[in-house]
Each structure stands twice: as C-alpha cells, then as structure tokens.
C-alpha cells in the first residue's frame, strides 16, 4: 500500500527539476512507501532526460508526458489521476523540500486524522530566505475548514492557496481536482472548494517547502492572455461562495483587480481592452451592498483604481468609489 503520492508538474524545468527530485531522494524513508508522479507538460528542453536520470534513486517514479502543454491545473490533475497513495501532496518543479519533511508531513496528518493539513513555507531568493506562515494562528489541532475562510478583513487560509503547502487525503478525490483550462490562479477556486466542502483540516508548523522567487518565466510576471484566467478563477469562486462567504470572495476579487490595474502596463493593448471588459462584467455581478463593502475594505487609493470599472449608479444609489 502506497502511503504518499507526490505530484510534480513540470514544463521546461531542466534547470531546476534535478533539485526538486534530489530533495525527494533525500526524503525517502523506510517507514512508508512514497510514489513520485512527474507530469511533463509538453517540455521542449531536457526535462525528460533529467527525470529519467532519477529512475534508480526514486524507485516509485512515474513519468507521464503531455505532448503539448495543457497548463499547471491540467498537469496536476493528470498526476492526481495516477496517484495511488493514501495521501497526496504537490511539489512544483522549481521548488524543493527540506530533508525529512515528507515523513513529518505524513506523521502530522496521520496523527491528526483530518482531511487535509496545511503548512508554512520558506521563500528563497538567491541565498536569502524568509519563512511565510500559513494564516491560521491555531496550530496542531483539527479545525472546521469553513471557519478558515473568514474573517473578511484578515488574510485567511483561502488567501494562502498554495496547493504544495499541504497534504491531502486522496479519498477527497474530486475535491482535489483543479479547474481545467486555467493557466493562472487555478488554486483559488481549488482552495475555496476544499474549505467549503471538506470535513476537517489542521495547520502545523512545518516549513519544509522552499519556494524559489524571482523566476523570470513565472506566469505572474508575463502579460499575455493567460494572465486573465484569474477572471475565470474568480467567477468560479463567486459562483460557489454562497451568501456567507460572498463578502470575502468579493473583497479578494477587488484587491486582486486593483493589483492587476497597478501592473496593467505589461498588458498589450488588446489584452488590456479584454481586461477592462471583463473587469466591468465581473463587478457587475456583485450585489451593490457587497461591492460597496468590498471597496470600503481597500485602501482608498487602491479602491480608486477600480472606479472606471464600476456599474453605472442606479436610482437607489449604487456604489461609487
């Protein structure tokens, strides 16, 4: 019986994949069986050779390949389908793990017996490292995932969407599946669903994932159409949020929109036009009261960035930033 499946999506990762896989070699343990599922999402570089080089040292290694890139969400889903472990975790190919982290992660979820366990992580830029804490002060106790969504005006567990910062019971099955077709922000609707529908979770103070910052090819730094997938992601969140959580979803959406407006200089004119259109459409979805509240929670100068996207004021007095 395989205890843990590690899903490693990778595209054109020859420079870093070796570090990620080496860190998995250094996490091998006789205490339980681990399988590693590398999903090569249409790499055009030496990624397949790098993965093959680890056959001997990672006995539980499976490599599957999408001939053309389908995106991170689809790659993770491919890995999930193949994952046979009782638990599953994710490792992005440009990140790496501390030795001994996976045994501790498995011990944590085994001991707590909950549906999923989230952890802290370390962000790395060159030799500089900074620990980032999961936004849940209560540690090592089983909690209700729905209580991890609120409050609106603080960073909460849905604002810490990194799938790789956690371990998940495989039997959650569909709840672990990422929305297909998204090339960015795929983890937002994913974490929201998990928190709305899973039975139990916990946060433990393990910081064994090292997240490489400042990579130039990172999607968050490029300005093509894929960057707009966050609209699709938030449409999904809004669709499912329900009245209790809609204010939180609306606040997050407004904050993210303001962030994108600040960085809009990197959009081409065509993408910018599409952005403007979608921003107006998504804000028009929100009830006036919710939108007003959400904008009121932003710093005034950030709320002002969204002024041109707001629906026309109606006779009952709609929101105006």
């Amino acid at each position, binding site marked *: 019986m395989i205890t843990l499946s590690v899903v490693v999506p990778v595209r054109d990762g020859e420079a870093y994949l070796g570090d990620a896989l080496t*860190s998995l070699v250094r996490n091998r343990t006789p205490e339980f069986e681990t399988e590693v599922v590398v999903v090569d999402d249409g790499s055009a570089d*030496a990624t397949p050779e790098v993965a093959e080089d680890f056959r001997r040292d990672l006995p539980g290694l499976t490599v599957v390949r999408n001939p053309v890139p389908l995106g991170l969400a689809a790659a993770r889903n491919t890995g999930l389908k193949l994952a046979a472990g009782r638990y599953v975790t994710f490792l992005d190919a440009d990140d*790496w793990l501390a030795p001994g982290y996976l045994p501790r992660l498995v011990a944590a979820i085994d001991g707590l017996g909950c549906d999923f366990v989230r952890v802290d992580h370390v962000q790395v830029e060159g030799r500089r490292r900074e620990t980032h804490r999961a936004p849940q002060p209560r540690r090592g106790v089983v909690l209700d995932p729905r209580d991890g969504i609120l409050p609106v005006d603080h960073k909460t567990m849905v604002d810490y969407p990194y799938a790789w910062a956690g371990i998940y019971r495989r039997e959650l099955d569909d709840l672990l599946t990422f929305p297909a077709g998204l090339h960015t922000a795929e983890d937002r609707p994913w974490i929201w669903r998990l928190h709305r529908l899973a039975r139990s979770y916990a946060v433990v103070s393990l910081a064994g994932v*090292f997240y490489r910052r400042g990579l130039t090819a990172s999607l968050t730094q490029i300005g093509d159409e894929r960057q707009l997938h966050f609209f699709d992601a938030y449409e999904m969140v809004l669709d499912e949020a329900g009245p209790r959580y809609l204010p939180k979803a609306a606040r997050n959406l407004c904050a993210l929109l303001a962030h994108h407006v600040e960085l809009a200089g990197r959009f081409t004119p065509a993408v910018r036009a599409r952005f403007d259109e979608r921003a107006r459409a998504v804000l028009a979805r929100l009830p006036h009261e919710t939108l007003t509240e959400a904008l009121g929670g932003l710093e005034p100068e950030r709320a002002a960035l969204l002024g041109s996207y707001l629906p026309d004021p109606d006779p009952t007095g709609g929101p105006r930033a």
Partner: protein
Amino acid sequence: MPDTTLFYASTLFGAMTLAAAIDEGRFRDGGRVLLVSNNAAIPEVTPALDEAPGFAALRDRFDRVLSWNEIIAPLHPSDWKPRSIETPMLGRLLRDLVGEPGELVLESIAVPPSRTLAGLVKDCPITVYSDGLMSYGPTRDPLPREIAGRITRLLHLDLVPGLAPLLLAEHGVPAEALADASFTGVTGRVAAAAEEAPRAEAVILGQYLSALGLITPAEEAALHERVLRGVAARGHRTVLFKPHPAAGRRHARELRPVAAELGVDLLVAPEATPAEACFAAHRPELVAGCFSTALVTARRLFGLPVAATGTDLVLERLTPYENSNRIPATIVDATLPRLEADGTLTEPPAADLTALVGAVGYCMQSAAHPGLRETAAAYVDAHGPARYFKKRRLESLGLIEPPLPPPAQSPARPPAQPPAQPPAPPASRLRRLLTR
C-alpha cells in the same frame, strides 16, 4: 574554565585538514566540538560533509558534531549575519549549546558563516586553517581589528612547497604547514571508509563555476567536454568523472553523449566520496580538470600525473579581479601541464611562482600588501600584462601607463599608433628589452 575547542568546517576536505592537524597534536587537550556548515547554494539537496560515509573515519576526533544549518534554519549560512546589538544574546545562546570555547578554529574567515561565528564567540583566540590553494592568495575582505587581532596562526597544507601563504599575512599571522604524511594518512582512512569509487584509467575533476556566475552552464558543459576529449585523445578508455560536490548530476548527464561518441566508458564517482579518496584507492594514470585544488593534491601528495584545461578562460572571466579563485587558478595555470581537446599535453613556460603570485596578489589587494608593489612592478615589466593581469587594474595601480589619449587632444605627440596597442613608454620598453 574554557577548555572546549570549537572547530568549524564546510567541506570534507576541510574536515580532513582539521583531522590531520589534530593528529599532529596542534590543539590543546579537552573537548572538541565540530560545527558543520553546508554552504552549497541549496544545502537541502546537497549532503553535508558529515553525511559522507568517509566522515566515519574522522568522527572520533570530535566529542560532538553539530549542524550550523540546523541551528540557524531555515536561513542560509552564507547569508545570515546577526545585528551587532544582538550578538551578546546570540553569542550566549550559542555558547550554551557548544560550551565555552578556549579556541575557535575557522576557515574562510572573511565571509559568513566563519566571520559570523568569530563575531558571536568573542573571547578566545582564533586559528585559521587553509582552504586549499586559497591560502596562497590575499584575504578576500578587510577584517575588523577585533577579529584580526585574535588570529594567532594559519594552519595550511604544504601544497606548493616554497610558496608562502599570503592569506592573513597583512595582519602578521604566522603560517604553519602541516606534514604531508598526516594529511595523506587521513585521506587513506577516509578512502577506506568512503563509498568506493569505480576504478578507471583517468579521473576528471568537475568544476562548478556556473554557480558563481563566472561562466554559463553551457560554457561549463563545453569545458568539461574539452577535458573529456583531451583525456580520450590520450588513449584513456575508462574515465571516472568526479562531479563538484555541489553540482548535482547535471554535469555527468551532459558528458554521457560525448563519452558515447568517443567510445569512452564514463563512470561517475559517488557524490560524497572526496577526490583524494579516489586517488588514494586507485592511483589513476591521469587526473585532469580545470583548476581544482585536487589537481595539486593529486600531483603533490599522491604523485599522480595531472593536467589542466581551460585555466585561460577562467583567468579571463574571474571577476572582480580580487575574486579569491584567482590565485588557485594562477597557480594551476602556471605550474601544471596543459591538456587540449586534441590530447596535446604541454608544460607551462617556466615561471617564478613566488614573484607571479606576489604580483597577482598585490594587484588583487594592493592596500593590504604595499610591500609587494616592487615585486609586482618588476614582474609586469619583465613579463607584460598578458594572461594573469587586467590592463585596467594595472593602469589604476600605476603599474603600466594608460593608453595615449586620442591625437586631437594631444597635438604635441607624434602620430598615434593603432589605439588597440599603445606603445610602451620608452623607459619600460628599454627595461623589457634588457630583461629579455
């Protein structure tokens, strides 16, 4: 009563040097604590020196072995420095952990984590031990008097007999060479304990210069390929590649297609087995590389034939000029046979190594070594700026004349020569003619 000696090491080579010094009785009796630091770019994926099986042969020299990375986790040892107002507290907490040291034994004193440790453990003398060939080069950064004034000696391997270490000489620190036999004795025991490397006719030592940004990964691959082609052209059919300890498996992977093309059986040494253990166990017919210290230990301490490739590229690329790899590269370039991809092996031109290293060392850190100015001036006069020097550095130090200004701004001068090759000023041209 402080009776603990606190040793710091970041490489197995360093720990072997410490063990040799301990075996020679160079330290006081009492407790010995080894603080191991893993300074690789990603320590989490690179085994620390005490994880190497060969370390078992050294373990009994120390009462305790602690990991500096674990103590400061998740920070990187080469990055973290405490704020000075916090050093009393952090020093106290560290001494709670390791005991009250009577002596601190460090390498690479100018940079963290050694410098950090020297700042946290303040009240005892410091011994510095050498970092291979780097002990022949000048100290990388100026040291505060509070640290420099505590350094009582430099322990080093006698890798280049007759050459005196420049490291810490500006502070008047006396250098003491360890006996060859104590080091080779230690490497023999480490080799016996290490994971055995496969036997091969030749050994190639990998470098990891791309990690320092000095060359690109593609240039590094090309450099390794040049070495392999040279070794193969000399008729060696089984070749053991010894990757740089922090380089992972990339370099071996890149070499495999080249080896297949050349019909060479390429073997890869276990990651944690030091090069010296490969030499001690198998006595290969040729050890080739770029400018690894292990080339010099192979020749000097194991009597093996060695060859260097690509030192010209390294000397060209090392930046800034005071990069502490410069002296190792210079020594290797000036003393070891040069191997080309076609298999030709040529001895370097005879050089006055003491003068050369003094001259390069002066140009690297002129302020620390004003006494070497005459040596540098004489060397540059006699040999010109080629290969080991940069014209801009020599000009700024006044060791060569700057190029003539353009003719328009100096109408009084005779017609200008081609600007790329300014004429040597008459006096030094005459001197050069006389010394030929």
